[in-house]
């Protein structure tokens, strides 16, 4: 059975390469593609570039980046952003890629949950461990309350005016929102598993004051269950050694446990997958679909090492083949940045 492929939608933005993932490998791909004069759009679910390096370990030292005896995750990201600046990539942050569709002219249409539409002959998937999503408390039936009574972020403060709120977690998000929302909410109860908080010290002392003043309820307990029906929460069940199982009234629960990675919609792109990794060839790091490449931690091949430097190498080789898709009528001349004035002009140094 054959299906007619769709044409590019009129509102799609055209580019040479769409890069999914703004981690170090996605960023370095902008550089390698830029040297070949290919334009890139970069999509990432986070609100900032850097991927894991920026989200999980910005302050941690990395010792195996060539020529950098030691560099932190965030400094590596900052250096890469400086290095790709001449190529002026377009970033689309806080966007989750939901669709990857072949077009009638052989290009790919990339669509995000925020309505971004990009048409390009080449897509680089540099999505690491997948997209960052909020950690979800393992409570039975929680899915049924998400979006109506359970929220992993505060989009509109008005939503919570006059409501009984339970906020869970011990970091800055949990404390900042507990302190902020106590003014308009009917009640705010903070739930944390221990009587200690990793949030900024000034937030912790503000919280202690608010608890002492009776403005915020504090329970050292764990979340044990949700009560309510049809997506409407009435109570959150808590549990601890001293009190056993008990409930606090709640119109909304805001769990703030940070982010974790999951593969997400990439699983539905029609690519071959091997244990949530994308198999690629080792000449060009291309997937089972022509023009779709996978580089960095998300790919797999014999001998694969999940190292940032492996991803950099993969980006360089994938870019060579990407050029053939994007500029089929041109010959690719291999040049060095040390000697080529063409490359130096692209880098704005000649």
């Amino acid at each position, binding site marked *: 059975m054959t299906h007619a492929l769709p044409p590019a939608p009129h509102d799609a933005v055209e580019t040479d390469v769409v890069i999914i993932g703004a981690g170090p490998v996605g960023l370095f791909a902008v550089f390698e593609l830029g040297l070949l004069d290919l334009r890139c759009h970069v999509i990432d679910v986070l609100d900032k570039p850097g991927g*894991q390096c920026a989200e*999980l*370990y910005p302050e*941690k030292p990395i010792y195996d980046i060539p020529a950098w005896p030691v560099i932190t995750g965030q400094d590596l990201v900052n250096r890469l952003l400086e290095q790709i600046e001449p190529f002026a990539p377009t970033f689309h942050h806080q966007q989750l890629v939901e669709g990857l569709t072949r077009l009638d002219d052989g290009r790919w249409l990339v669509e995000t949950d925020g309505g971004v539409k990009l048409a390009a002959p080449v897509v680089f998937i540099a999505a690491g*461990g997948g997209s960052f*999503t909020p*950690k*979800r*408390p*393992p409570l039975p039936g929680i899915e049924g309350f998400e979006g109506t009574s359970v929220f992993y972020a505060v989009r509109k403060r008005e939503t919570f005016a006059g409501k009984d709120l339970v906020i*869970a*977690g*011990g*970091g800055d998000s949990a404390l900042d929102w507990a302190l902020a929302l106590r003014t308009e909410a009917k009640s705010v109860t903070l739930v*944390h*598993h*221990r009587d*200690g*908080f*990793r949030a900024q010290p000034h937030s912790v002392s503000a919280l202690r004051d608010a608890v002492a003043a009776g403005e915020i309820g504090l329970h050292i307990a*764990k*979340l044990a269950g949700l009560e309510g029906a049809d997506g409407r929460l009435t109570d959150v069940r808590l549990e601890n050694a001293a009190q056993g199982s008990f409930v606090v009234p709640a119109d909304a629960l805001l*769990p703030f*446990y*940070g982010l*974790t*990675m*999951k593969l997400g919609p990439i699983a539905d792109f029609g690519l071959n997958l091997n244990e949530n990794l994308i198999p690629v060839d080792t000449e060009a790091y291309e997937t089972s679909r022509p023009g779709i490449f996978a580089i960095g931690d998300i790919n797999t091949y014999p001998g694969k090492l*999940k190292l940032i430097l492996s991803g950099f190498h993969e980006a360089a080789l994938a870019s060579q083949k990407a050029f053939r898709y994007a500029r089929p009528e041109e010959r690719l001349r291999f040049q060095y940045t040390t000697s080529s004035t063409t490359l130096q002009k692209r880098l704005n140094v000649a």
Partner: protein
Amino acid sequence: MKIQVTDRAGETHVLDALEGWRVMEIIRDHGLPIKAECGGACACATCHVYVDADWQDLLHPPTDEEIEMLDTTPSVEPASRLSCQILFRPELSGLSVTLAPEDL
């Protein structure tokens, strides 16, 4: 030297253990499902395990950094540890842990 790991389906696996390896690395090397997404930097809490009561006192107590990172998993319990922060040594032969739920 062995460790015993109970997976999320309740099945128990006895794994060969090597001195100096992190327990997370031993579990990962045997192909059991442990995300360990930060790679052992005590920066993500996705190598979270519950340590059997008999073994808790033999482990070095968690650092402040580990305690704070355990705050980021909603499945935290008194028996919780990050397996990337447990270095295997011969006295731990027989160590028994259970993989915590994935926070997805």
